[in-house]
């Protein structure tokens, strides 16, 4: 019985871990290009989730609303980079951080203003009966795990095999050399924002049936995602994704044994622990400068 309970927590940890992994990937994508963590990533995802909710309220079927939202989130991310981030590209780090925090507050209060702070239920596209008659994991958890995996595979395939993906990686790695092979670096950064924003939107839509829809729904999730990204290595997309899954499982297992009050503490302990013991994360590059 004890074992069954543990197994159940691990599976549901993998499901939420997938959400953290997606958000961690979004964070890493922006980090690689700018060397900064986009604190507004969660709020952008939350706002996109509200958009999906609005579309569904207007009668658009679930998957229609899903794809329209993802497309709008992508365009929104591109526009935010071009209009707001690009002008402060060469500004001191602190200025950019302030811009990120400003975005966070703007999206949060905009959502509160338009939709109020009342918690709303959010539909799941998956049946309410457990899939395959299993009793371990709910069908939404299983379904969202599937969606997350598809998204992660698509993103990795894109970066690994397409010329555009290669160009985006090049732009993030070495802007000067990228220009010298004809890559339009500014647009690559904007596309990165669009992609991160779209991935965030999917994560938001997938997690909303679990945490319910409200303007602060992504706050804790972004913290877990950040912990996952740090754990895996903030400059390593694969590591960050794995870190997200580990944090998800760890959070649930710790919750099982020590009570769910300490769940958020897990994230904070991981963040502090990684920064103290191994700042580059499990799979991140250790930067050594030649003197």
């Amino acid at each position, binding site marked *: 019985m004890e074992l069954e309970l543990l197994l159940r927590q691990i599976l549901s940890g993998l499901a939420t871990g997938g959400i953290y992994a997606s958000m961690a990937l979004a964070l890493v994508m922006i980090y690689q290009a700018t060397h900064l963590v986009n604190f507004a990533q969660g709020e952008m995802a939350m706002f996109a989730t509200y958009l999906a909710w609005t579309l569904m309220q207007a009668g658009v079927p679930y998957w229609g609303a899903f794809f329209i939202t993802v497309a709008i989130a992508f365009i929104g991310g591109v526009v935010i980079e071009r209009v707001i981030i690009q002008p402060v590209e060469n500004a001191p780090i602190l200025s950019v951080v302030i811009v990120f925090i400003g975005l966070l507050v703007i999206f949060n209060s905009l959502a509160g203003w338009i939709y109020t702070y009342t918690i709303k239920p959010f539909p799941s596209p998956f049946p309410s009966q457990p899939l395959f008659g299993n009793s371990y994991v709910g069908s939404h958890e299983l379904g969202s795990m599937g969606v997350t995996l598809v998204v992660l595979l698509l993103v990795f395939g894109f970066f690994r095999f397409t010329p555009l993906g*290669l*160009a985006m990686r090049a732009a993030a790695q070495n802007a000067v050399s990228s*220009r010298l092979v004809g890559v339009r670096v500014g647009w690559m950064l904007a596309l990165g924002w669009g992609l991160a924003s779209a991935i965030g939107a999917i994560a938001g839509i997938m997690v909303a049936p679990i945490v319910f829809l409200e303007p602060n729904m992504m706050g804790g999730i972004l913290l877990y995602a950040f912990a996952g990204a740090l754990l895996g290595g903030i400059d390593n997309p694969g590591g960050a994704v794995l870190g997200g899954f580990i944090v998800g499982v760890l959070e649930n297992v710790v919750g099982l044994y020590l009570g769910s009050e300490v769940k958020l503490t897990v994230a904070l302990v991981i963040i502090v622990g990684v920064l103290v013991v191994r700042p580059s994360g499990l799979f991140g590059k250790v930067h050594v400068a030649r003197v």
Partner: protein
Amino acid sequence: MSAAMDGSILRVRGLRAQYGNTKVLHGIDFDVGKGGITTILGANGAGKTTTLRAMCGMVATQGEVLLDGERIDGKATESIVRMGVAHVPDGRGTFLNFTVEENLRIGAYTRKDREQVQADYERIYAYFPRLRERRRQQAGTLSGGEQQMLAVSRALMLKPRLLLLDEPSFGLAPLIVQELFEIFRTINKSDGVSMLLVEQNAALALRLADHAYLLETGRVVISGTAESIRSDESVRRSYLGY
């Protein structure tokens, strides 16, 4: 209008450049003949690297830069590159986290002729067999010579009209340098790629180039055919130091 000017792929007139308040180039003129190799010689700080950077919009300049008769000064770097100007920069500009193969792929990023690109990989690997052996290796793990070969290869994958080379001999063993310059000659002859070569190693550059310009603190002090400069003993002694 001299004959040399009519046959120029690159024509530069009155080029000025400065970093902040420090003027680096004080109005220089030079040409690169179509299918030719021009070299710019000079000591450290003469403005050689700045001149090359100015060719592809990496520094703010005044004056005219014409590529096949078309003004390119003031254009964005990536637009000039897309017109067929490849630059092997100072410090090589390698994508260190990419594999050798990915470095070549990104070099061909702007090209649409996919079949020809495939053939060009083979051609490059034929020039530099070492790169074929290491094609799945991270570029950051290559030796200095191999990285320079990779930088040249990446530039060639663009299928350029004009190749800008910034001190390709820098930091390399003499034998590797010989090999590299031999390949420059081959590329120039068989593919008709024009080249603008910046070098501190004057003897080496003058053997490869057809025209040479000597730069001293941002001004052209001597120019002519590589042959005439090579054979002028007083120039060699006082400026080139060999």
